[in-house]
């Protein structure tokens, strides 16, 4: 996961299959190649929101504030989930609401780091499709 997180934001695309990233991690821990022939279009402006290691009920109010600030931004919003270790239903609910809001405005949400924790939580809650995580796209 660490190796993955070292990859640049531009070098990854959300539709990259997770499996390949896992393989990449195993075989070449230092460098993760971007998907063949496709490089992410450089955004003129980008907003990144870093999710802390614990993203649970006591943190959601603060996170909501941050998400609201960027919800209407035209630029791509990147959610940095590299540090995320623990997430609960309240946080998943909030992230789903954010993704839905962005989708309604046809604005992009990118994920930085492999969102395994989030994916597992969303899968358990039956909310994986709502989050539009890389694998699900």
């Amino acid at each position, binding site marked *: 996961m660490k190796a993955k997180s070292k990859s640049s934001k531009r070098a990854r695309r959300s539709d990259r299959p997770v499996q390949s990233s896992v393989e990449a991690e195993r075989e070449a821990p230092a460098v993760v190649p971007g998907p063949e022939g496709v490089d992410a279009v450089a955004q003129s402006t980008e907003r990144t929101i870093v999710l802390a290691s614990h993203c649970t*009920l*006591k943190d*959601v*109010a603060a*996170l*909501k504030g941050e*998400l*609201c600030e960027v*919800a209407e931004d035209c630029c791509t919003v990147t959610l940095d989930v590299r540090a995320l270790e623990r997430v*609960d*239903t*309240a946080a*998943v*609910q*909030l992230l*789903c*609401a*954010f993704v*839905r*809001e962005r989708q309604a405005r046809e604005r992009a949400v990118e994920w930085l780091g492999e969102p395994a924790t989030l994916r597992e*939580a969303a899968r*358990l*809650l*039956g*909310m994986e499709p*709502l989050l539009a995580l890389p694998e699900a796209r």
Partner: protein
Amino acid sequence: MALDLAQFHDAFFDESFEALDTMEASLLKLNVGEPEPELIATIFRVAHSIKGGSATFGFTEVASFTHTCETLLDELRAARMKVTRGITDLLLRSVDVMREMLRAVQHKEPIDAQRVADLQFDLELAIVQNNSAAPDPAPSADETRVVADSTDAAAAPEAVQTAHCWTIQFKPYPQLFAHGNDPMRMLRELSELGELTVQAHAEQTPPLAEMDSESCYLWWELRVQTDATREVIDQVFDWAEGDCELQITDERMQAPAASNVVKLPLEPASAAQPVEAAPAEPTRAAPAAEHNEAPKQSLGDGSSIRVSTEKIDELMNTVGELVITQSMLSQLGGKLAGPVAEQLRSGLTQLERNVRELQESVMRVRMLPISFVFSRFPRMVRDLSQRLGKQVELKVTGDQTELDKTVLEKIGDPLVHLVRNSVDHGVETPQVRAAAGKPACGTVYLEAYHKGGNITVEVGDDGGGLDKERILQKARERGLVGANETPPDEAIYDLIFMAGFSTAEQTTDISGRGVGMDVVRRNIKELGGAIEVRSTPGRGSRFIITLPLTLAIVDGQSVAVGAETYIVPLITIIESLQLKPGMVNRVAGQGEVFWFRDGYVPIVRLHEVFGVKPRAAQLHEGLIMVVEGDGRRVGLFVDELLGQQQVVIKSLETNFRSVEGVSGATILGDGAVALILDVPGLIRLSGARAAA
């Protein structure tokens, strides 16, 4: 909002201790060789939920230990491991350790790490030994888990063989998160029970800016294919009770039975969802009928809420006050005349009835089945008999008999003492029993039943009975009984309740120090109860305890002394009579006595004890009430008898201070305070006065 998980600690500890009791009881019921899957599932659930809870609250040591327990139980559940006596013992010891760990965590005390580590090692050893003994390559705990899961998942055609297919509609109320519940935990638990299909509904989530991030807007439709019973499914949602709307149905059951639908009503608005009411009409949706039936269904499902005893005591107190106000109004109503007064009186009669019903309902809330106390004995008898090398079977009857919580709490220790005595002194060793022509396995009885407004609890055994000769010999040695005197059997047996009286030749760590039986009797007396012993040589002995149903209300006889009213507990009264002049004798050191039935009874003039000016100064002008306490009788001299009534006891110690000879006070219909007499205390008091 910072969520303080500490506020849920108490509930967690309460529930965990209860769950451990259940686990212990189930372990004791477990048949070695052919265990019942239901019991194993129950035991597994306990370990599982304690593990989950302690992990949530960060009690890592508890979580780690219960995890090992759970792994072993999972082996038992999957029938990969056999239930042996050794395994049951190991798990019973684990229950003890979990209990101690939780207690230590609860009181912020250090955990006995060595003991925990030792037992954890034993548990792991048992798992490893079993796995290496098994013909299949030994899987590690984690792999085992995977195997179990893959069996569930891969065996799609076999899935039909699972006993149930539960469909669950789980609609949390907005406050669910704030109350410390995370649906993820519940879904994870469900997924561990079998194959889980989840359909989440997020349609009700408002736009991001408008949403309260700490409220839950989601709801789920779930489907679990599992062997788990309804009870197990219910337990997953235990913590969310009151914070969600829950409908659980078994798809396998063609006609959805009413009992398969549970609603946890909290918000009237959301509770107005259709409820399947009767199996015959599953689609019926008449709102009026639903409202009537909803509570019945919740009762049927055993849904309950946890209420602190303080709140119930408060309620009890308020009802007590209401009883007093009501009787005050009734007295007042009786004095009025005219047509309106008649209406008032009929209203008051209605009020009286309602108040009485209310009082009974509140009393019932305080009642708990005696099984709360009895449940500790199977384990105790098992452990004791093992240590003593005896074979003892415990037979419990009437464990659903209900008693007031306060009485229950105080009766535990005396019963432990009696049961321990029965196993230690009562039941003989198998050799002695065989020689006496009895089956090698002895029996200890524990019975509870209602008898004349009281509860009787009997502890008995089919052992050798009390040794009358030895008791008598000891009593003679100690000068309690004269050398040539032979008291009746009852009186001899009664000697065992004397302080420091023991006939045991050697004391053990279990019993025989002669400390205890006197404490047992004192404790029971303090509860307003009595204990007697019956014994047949060679056939066993029985201890019969009589207890009042409650300590909050007493049946009393009100008596007048001068301008004061006193309440004498009915249970202590033997007879009331009027003395004729000449029936009274004066005895040196005892004051006035009179002949009653078969002996002289001292007279206690209540007005003298309490310093009240009496209306009747001569004994033949008033009445004598013969009362008994601590095995002694006295005649209480009072002015007149007023009437019998149930009175609500108010503690004098709480409201004033403890007064000798008085056990409490009550407020009468006219608002006056009447003291409730403590007859044994009064007898002691009058004895001291006479001696002075």
